C-alpha cells in the first residue's frame, strides 16, 4: 500500500490562482488535450444512456411473467440491469481510457 502522497500541501491560504493567470504565465506546458474522437463520444454516450433509458421506461418491465426462479419479471429484470449497467459503464471507462492514451494525452 503506497504511503499517502504529499498532496496535502496543495492547500494554501487562498485556494486559487488569479483568474487572469494563464497556463503560460504559470510556466506550465500547454494543455494538449484533444477532444475525444466523435465515434468514441457517441459510443460512450450510448453506453451511459442505455441503463438510464431502460430503467426509466417502467412500462417495459412492469409485469409479472415470465417468472425466473420464482422471481416475477419486474424484479429479476431490474436486478439483471445491475450487471448490464456495470458492464456498460466499464466499457465506457475502457473506451475513454484507450482513446486518451492513444491521443497523446500527456
Amino acid at each position: 500500500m503506497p504511503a499517502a502522497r504529499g498532496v496535502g500541501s496543495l492547500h494554501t491560504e487562498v485556494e486559487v490562482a488569479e483568474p487572469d493567470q494563464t497556463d503560460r504565465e504559470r510556466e506550465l506546458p500547454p494543455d494538449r488535450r484533444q477532444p475525444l474522437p466523435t465515434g468514441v463520444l457517441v459510443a460512450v454516450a450510448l453506453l451511459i444512456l442505455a441503463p438510464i433509458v431502460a430503467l426509466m421506461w417502467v412500462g417495459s418491465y412492469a409485469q409479472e411473467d415470465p417468472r425466473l426462479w420464482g422471481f416475477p419479471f419486474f424484479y429479476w429484470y431490474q436486478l439483471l440491469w445491475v450487471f448490464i449497467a456495470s458492464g456498460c459503464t466499464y466499457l465506457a471507462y475502457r473506451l475513454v481510457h484507450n482513446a486518451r492514451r492513444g491521443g497523446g494525452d500527456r
Partner: protein
Amino acid sequence: MTGVNWVALTVVIILFVFVTGVGFAAARWRRAQSMASLDEWGLGGRGFGTFITWFLLGGDLYTAYTFIAVPAAMFATGAVSGFFAVPYTIIVYPIIFVFLPRLWSVSHRHGYVTPADFVEGRHGSRGLGLAVAVTGILATMPYIALQLVGIQAVLEVMGVGGSNNVIAQDLPLFIAFAVLAAYTYSSGLRAPALIAFVKDFLIYLVIIVAVVYIAVKIGFGASFDAAQKKMATINPATGKPTGVFIPPPAQYWAYASLALGSALALFMYPHSITAVLSSRSRNVIRRNAAILPAYSLVLGLLALLGFAAIAAGTKPIGLNGKPNAQLGVPQFFEDSFPSWFAGVAFAAVAIGALVPAAIMSIAAANLFTRNIYRAYFEREVSREKEAQVSKITSLIVKLGALIFVLSLDRQNAINFQLLGGIWILQTFPALVLGLYTRWFHRWALLIGWAVGMVYGTVAAYQQSSAATKHFGSSLDQVPFVGKLGYIALTAFVINLIVAVVLTFVLRAMKSPEGVDQTEPSDYFADEGDPRVQPIDELTADTSKASST
C-alpha cells in the same frame, strides 16, 4: 419478544469494540506528516486508490438506515416505496461517470474541499456558496440522526433500551456515539475508510447467508406470493390496497421519478463528494462507477428480505407494544437464525451506521469551516486552524444529531430526511451545470435554488397519509402533467426554469457577473499532471477574494 438477547448482544459488543480499535488505529494508517489540515483530516490525504474508494463509497452511500428502511418499506407497502431503490442505485453510476471526474479535477487543481468551495469559486459568489453549504448541512443533519435510528432498531429487537428510565434507555446510543465522535476527532476520514472494510465484509456475509436461507427454507416464489397477497389486501383504514406489488400504469411516473430524482440527488450530498474527493485520480472514480453497482445488488436482495419477512409471518412489535415496520428485518433475523448469527447481522447494521455517520459529520464540518467560518469570519485562516475548527464542528454536529433523535419523535427524523433529499437536489444546477458552463447568472442560480427549496418544502408539507398529517409522502401531483411524481424532481425542474429565465433577464439588465477562478484546462487535470499540484509557489501570492 421478552428480555434481552444476551448472545446476540455479546456478539454485537465484541464487534463494536473491535471496530473502535480499528477507528483509533486508523490515525496511523497511511500516516501523513501532519494531520493538521483539511486535506489530511477531512479527505484522508486525497490519495485513496480504487480498492479503498470502493469500500469507502460503498460504506458511505449504503447506510444503515437504507438497510433498515428499504426492506421495511417493502414489508409495509411494496414496490413503489421500496424497490425503486434498485433502479435508483443503478442509474446513479452512469450519471456520476459523466460529471464527477470534472469535479475531481477542478477541486484538486484549486484545493477545493467541499462542493460549495467549487460553487463559490466558479460563480464568483460567496452567497451562492453559502446557499449550497447551508443546504448541505441541513440535508445531512437528519441523515446522521437516521443512522442513530438504525442503531436503535437493532437495540430494540435485542431487547435493549426499553426501560422506563430515560438514562438507561438511551445509554447504549450515548456510548456508541461518544466512541464514534472520539475516533472521528482523532483519525478523521481515515477512521470510516478503514472501518468500512469491516462493515462491508459483514454486510456481504449476512446477505449471502440470508439469501441462501430464503432459497432453501422459504423459497423465493413463496415470498413473492405472500407479498402479492398482502399488497392486494384492502386496508380497512384507507379502503385501498395495502401496497403495490408491481406498479400499475398510473404509478410508472412515480416509480421512475423517485429513481431519477434520488439518483441525481445522491452525489449532491456533501458526504458523497467528500468520499469522491479523497480518491487519487479520475480513473479511480470511473472504475468505481463500474464496480459500485455490486452494492446495488446487495441492496436489491436486502429489499427482498422485506417480502421474505411477510412470508415468514414476522410480527415486528416494538418494545412499546406497537407495530413498527422498521423492526421487520431485524425481527426476521432474530426469529429465523441462531442468536449468534442474528448478532452478526445486528452488528453489521450498527457498524453500518457508524461509517456514514462519521463521513457525514466530517462533510458537514468541512462545509461549516470552509464556506461559513472561513468565508465570513476569518478570511485568512491558517490550515491548522481550519482543521481544528472542523474537528470541533464534527463533534457539535454529532451532538446535534443525538439531541435530534432523543428529543424529537422518530417520525420527525424521517420527515426531515425526506425534505433533505428534496433540498439537496436544488444545488444541482449551481454544482453540476456549473462544471460545464458559466452561462447561468449567479443570482439566477441563487433565486432558482430558493424557489425550488420553497416549492419542495411546501409541497412535502402538504402531503398527508394514514399515519401522519404532514410529510406523508414524497410524491405529489406534478403540475401540467397530472400524475404523481417525486416532489424533488418537480422542484428541480422549476428551479431550472427560473434559473434560465432569470439569466436572460439579468443579462439584459447587464447585472454584474462574478469572477470565475477556474479555467477550461482545470476540468481535465489528472494525477501526475503539474496542474493538479498548484503548490504554494504557484498560488501563494494571489488573493483574489470573491464577493457577491
